């Protein structure tokens, strides 16, 4: 969930939007503060000009009257009038010794706050000084309201982003998980599975539809392949059955009795060919995953015990020792017949290629909770460069080309291992070779 791309995208957008809100807030507050300041200053100047006009038309008395009148009006600006000697004449600001021009007056207000008043002082004819001031509190209240609403917006964006992003990515995650699930089922061999389409006709649905078309195509190709291999099996089977029949009939024909060894040799060769052919078809079918339906719960040590018990007498007669080392008996979901054949192939490989008197151990154990089956011999081993390729079809070591075998044994081992979600590999057993089938922990 936390490694999902949709969640990352949602987080990115949330952070981006939150940053945008912060920037927008700062710009708005600064702009508003600036505009308001100019507006307030304009009002102060206008009042100051109007009082100066009053002085010119009505004289000092007119100004004093006007100042007193405005002092009584609620919401009006603050005013003050001083004479040349600095004596207060009228108005709340009259006692303030402000310089000419703009200045700020700080005064202790009703509570702990410091009231700040912006004052504009002008000189009237006759040495009088006219002060017009405005409490900056009004601008500050507006500032505060703006900052507060942007703070709310900031946290709102974060909460919306987190909640929305979580919900969104959960939805996307669920749909992606259904696609992943379908893909896993197909990998496991269920070629009829399709990716579910939600019907919203969005990008995910289009992706699902495209994947499904691709799967249809793959299924079609697989079906063709199956048909071809079935056809080959069927079309070759009839002539090969006839051929084998003719050879067998020739064996009992009186005049041909002296060629018996030739005929028997031909039958042996034919059977080897048929064996390789059947093994190829079998590997193809295992790789197609068709056998998964036959899976059930089995103990690996029991499979190993059956094989060791069956082969130990033959091994002994051949001067080899074959023994089971069951350090654990992990149970997995599997096909006992195929697992048995897999192990038989490995044991037979060891019997054939591990030298004259090999000591062969079939080891069943768990490594970090994952089941591992190994067939370990003390023979000459296999060069590192060859180990991977030995699992390929028909690949054989140069040194073993002269011995019997089709080169399909390990290919079948690899196919059976893959069918069970396991990995087949060859390792140096120092001395000798270890053929290892490592199952995944999930198989248990």
């Amino acid at each position, binding site marked *: 969930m936390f490694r999902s791309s949709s969640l990352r995208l949602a987080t990115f957008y949330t952070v981006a939007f939150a940053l945008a809100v912060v920037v927008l807030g700062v710009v708005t507050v600064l702009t508003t503060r600036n505009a308001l300041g100019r507006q307030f200053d304009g009002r102060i100047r206008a009042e100051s000009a109007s009082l100066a006009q009053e002085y010119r038309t009505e004289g000092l008395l007119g100004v004093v009257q006007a100042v007193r009148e405005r002092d009584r009006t609620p919401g009006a600006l603050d005013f003050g009038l001083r004479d040349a000697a600095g004596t207060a004449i009228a108005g709340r600001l009259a006692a303030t010794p402000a310089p000419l021009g703009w200045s700020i007056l700080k005064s202790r207000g009703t509570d702990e706050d410091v009231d700040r008043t912006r004052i504009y002082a002008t000189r009237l004819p006759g040495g009088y000084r006219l002060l017009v001031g405005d409490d900056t509190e009004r601008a500050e209240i507006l500032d505060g309201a703006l900052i507060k609403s942007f703070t709310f917006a900031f946290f709102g964006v974060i909460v919306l982003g987190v909640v929305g992003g979580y919900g969104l990515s959960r939805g996307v995650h669920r749909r992606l998980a259904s696609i992943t699930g379908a893909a896993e089922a197909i990998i496991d061999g269920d070629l009829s599975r399709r990716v579910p389409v939600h019907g919203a006709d969005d990008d995910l649905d289009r992706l699902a539809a495209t994947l499904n078309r691709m799967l249809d195509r793959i299924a079609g190709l697989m079906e063709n392949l199956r048909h071809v291999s079935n056809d080959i099996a*069927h079309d070759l*089977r009839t002539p*090969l059955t006839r051929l084998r*029949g003719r050879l067998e009939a020739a064996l009992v024909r009186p005049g041909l009795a002296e060629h018996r060894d030739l005929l028997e040799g031909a039958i042996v060769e034919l059977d080897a060919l048929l064996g390789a052919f059947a*093994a190829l*078809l079998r590997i193809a079918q295992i790789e197609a995953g068709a056998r998964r339906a036959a899976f059930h719960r089995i103990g690996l040590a029991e499979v190993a015990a059956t094989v060791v018990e069956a082969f130990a007498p033959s091994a002994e007669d051949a001067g080899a020792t074959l023994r089971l080392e069951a350090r654990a008996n992990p149970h997995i979901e599997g096909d006992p017949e195929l697992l048995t054949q897999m192990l*038989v192939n490995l044991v*037979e490989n060891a019997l054939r290629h591990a030298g004259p008197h090999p000591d062969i151990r079939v080891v069943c154990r768990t490594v970090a909770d994952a089941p591992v089956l190994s067939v370990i011999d003390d023979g000459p081993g296999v060069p590192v460069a060859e180990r991977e390729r030995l699992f390929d079809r028909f690949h054989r070591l140069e040194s073993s080309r002269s011995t019997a075998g089709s080169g399909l044994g390990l290919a079948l081992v690899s196919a059976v291992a893959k069918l069970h979600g396991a990995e087949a590999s060859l390792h140096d057993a120092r001395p000798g070779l270890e053929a290892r089938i490592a199952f995944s922990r999930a198989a248990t």
Partner: protein
Amino acid sequence: MKLLLVEDDSETAAWLKRALNEAGHTVDCAASGRDGLLLAAGETYDVIVLDRMLPQLDGLSILRTIRASKVQTPVLLLTAMGGIDDRVEGLEAGGDDYLVKPFAFAELLARVGALARRPPAQDVRTALKVADLEMNLLTRAVSRGGIRIDLQPREFQLLEYLMRHAGRVVTRTMMLESVWDFHFDPKTNIVETHMSRLRGKLHRDEAPELIHTIRGAGYCLREP
């Protein structure tokens, strides 16, 4: 024995018919699934040999139809090579045994023989006896001429299989399938090895051999 052979390839059918006749069996041949079904329903046979792949009506459908009409005749299915699930499918459809094509004739003959005289399922025997060889299936005790013989579990199973098929040929693959449950062909001679050990344990200097090797076919346990 009277056999029904359902096989579409005329050359194979002719060869099998001739060889089965030589082995002392009477054979009716059917070249298509329909003919086979008609014969199987009308006549009484000891064993039916049925090819799985037939034109028109395939072997499994015929088998199901035969079994649905309560015909209990043992059926030996001939299946295509390489087919992994063929055996399971064939046995589920009501087949009694299967053989992968192409096969050795001796194998077919041995399996037909084993099927024909298969004891009925309800026949529960507690002891087997061939000449002076005795096997108690309850105590799992084996003796020859009154002298007890110790057998490994697998050797016991092998001997039991041979004794149940006494007088008939059993092939290497038949033993691999029924004794070891191996449905593939190991390259190692595990049957031969077990058989020679079993022979060694059954051997008595003065008494005749009971297990005989049949060249090119398999083994046969029979009274001397």
